[in-house]
């Protein structure tokens, strides 16, 4: 609503989801989370974030499959910028391949995450 900036956190690890959610909410962002790509698509049906924090290696629907699905979403949802956050090697390369705005490796630094989200939201 209005000025509140929204972030969708997609990660299969509960500990990471809660840390990120708590940190972002503290900074004044509105946060929703999903544990895999499929759940995330469900969230996107009713809620439009300004940025997506995306883990790559997840069961059920991984980050790559989610990205592919996202491209086919309507109403500009396909253009919601991605911040890739992954334990995979070559995160940067994956980030580029996925067309992400930023790519961060795990374990991440909270400050880096904030910076990335700010950067993306101020495009």
């Amino acid at each position, binding site marked *: 609503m209005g000025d509140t900036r929204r972030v969708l956190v997609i990660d299969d690890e509960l*500990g990471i989801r809660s840390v990120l959610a708590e*940190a972002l909410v503290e900074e004044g962002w509105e946060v929703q989370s999903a544990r895999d790509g499929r759940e995330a698509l469900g969230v996107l049906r009713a809620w439009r974030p300004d940025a997506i924090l995306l883990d790559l*290696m997840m069961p059920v629907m991984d980050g790559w499959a989610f990205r592919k699905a996202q491209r086919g979403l309507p109403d500009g949802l396909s253009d919601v910028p991605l911040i890739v956050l992954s334990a995979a090697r070559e995160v940067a390369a994956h980030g580029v391949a996925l067309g992400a705005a930023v790519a961060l490796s795990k374990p991440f630094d909270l400050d880096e995450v904030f910076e990335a989200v700010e950067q993306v939201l101020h495009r």
Partner: protein
Amino acid sequence: MGNAAPPGYLGCLSALAGSSFASSREATDAVLRLLSDQLGMRSGFLTRITPQQNGNEVLAAYNAPGGCDVPAGALLPLSETYCSVISDSIDLAPVLIEATHTDPIFRIHPASMASPHIGSFIGVPVLLSDGSFYGTLCAVDPEPRTLTRHQSDLLVVLARLLATQIERDDQLAERRRVQEQLLLQVQLIEQVAAAVIVTDLEGRVTHWNQHAERLYGWSREEVLGGNIGQLTVGPAESEIATEIMERLRAGQSWEGEFLATRRDGSTFPAYVTDTLACDADGHPVGIVGVSVDITERERLLAGERTAREEAEEALRVRDEFLSIASHELRNPVSAAKGSAQLLLRSLRRGTPDPERMERGLGAIVTATDRLAVLIDDLLDVSRLRSGQFPMRKRPTDLAALVHEEAESGSASRGTHCLTIEGIAAPCIATVDPDRFRQVVVNLLDNAVKYSPGGGEVRVLLSCEPEGALLRVEDQGIGLPHGTEDRIFEPFGRAANATGSNLPGMGLGLYISRRIAEAHGGSLRAESVGEGRGTTMTLRLPLQVHHDEGGPPDGHRGESEGRLGG
């Protein structure tokens, strides 16, 4: 003297004509003797002349007593002999010198100086059938002699005779040499470790070496004259065979792999080289085919290919394992770090909230605990794979161990109802107690973890002399059909497990099964279907007894234990 030949000449010639000699040498010697007798000259010679070397070689000699005594084999300087007069003359005419030392021309000839013992000389050239100058047939005497035209005529006739003989001898020698070479080549071809097959231009076999017999199964007698196409070409290769004939007809050779057919119809891969054989004028006279059996080579290559594929697959599997492992490790690290950073921020802001601190620190502990388990599991897997998984087996009471774990288990079993059977009497088997405990804990934890809705967990330990059996049943999410084996692979969690977001890396069952196998036993999973629970069965076919030296079947009762509520 008239123009008629002296009567003795005819006799001499007919005597020669009628004789048969054991060797050319004998014949030559006979000719020289006859010559010497007829001419009244006491020495007769056949010489070979090599003008470039100034050489005059006495090939054969007849020296009557009182003759000039020049032996066969003597090599004289041509220029110092009267033979040079023959070789120097343009028309190669006979040379007659009746008195060498008083003749106005010849007395100053170098030969007169070099051979003072020669008083008279008569000689004619020996000419071969192609007109080339071979040497001389000559007769000499220490005394001067009267020499006539008839005498030189006789010499000419005899020289022709000797020339024919010389040529025939040369031909024989050449033929023998060629035959020897051929024999050597044939032997070489026979010994070559490749099939060498020679055919005429129509493909009829003219040569079939030993290796060909071995390779194709046809003996030489069977194939000579037969058509190569019908012998070694099967229907599969008829196209290539046509191509080969075309190339050969075009004057080219063909080289390549060919599926050859043996006499018994079986085939083998061969490497074949077919070339045209041409005569001295370059006309094709036949086809030479060399073939080698490359079955071994193919097998080696295939073996290498398989080995390489297996190595690549192993690498791929390992890379995947490492990738997943690193992911599994980084996640809890990330969660712990994130929690710690959050708490630091709130500290710095000066707003430490005890409840938040409690939560955050608790999350760090949980994450690091999980890390510890993961690290242990990974180390176990690593040791299992490198074969360094030491087992310290000793007689262990399995019943007591199962009882212990079931009773004292971790807090996570609080919501379940645990039933244990078969642990009343000791069940002693030789196992590694720590590893066995690891398996029991893994099975119990899984039973609780994968039945999140609660329910009963039944544990049964059965102890027979032939072996022990541990069964753990839960009423949880069960297993989809077909996944009963995959769950034992590293990280091989069934889809329904990962979907419900249950913690765990998926290594526990892999390790447990390997422990079971290291004891000569097995670990299997069964499930009626999704949502219908799972049964894990551990079999240990070990010698089991109920106590040290006690009766084989002791009293076994049932015992129930309830935990939590």
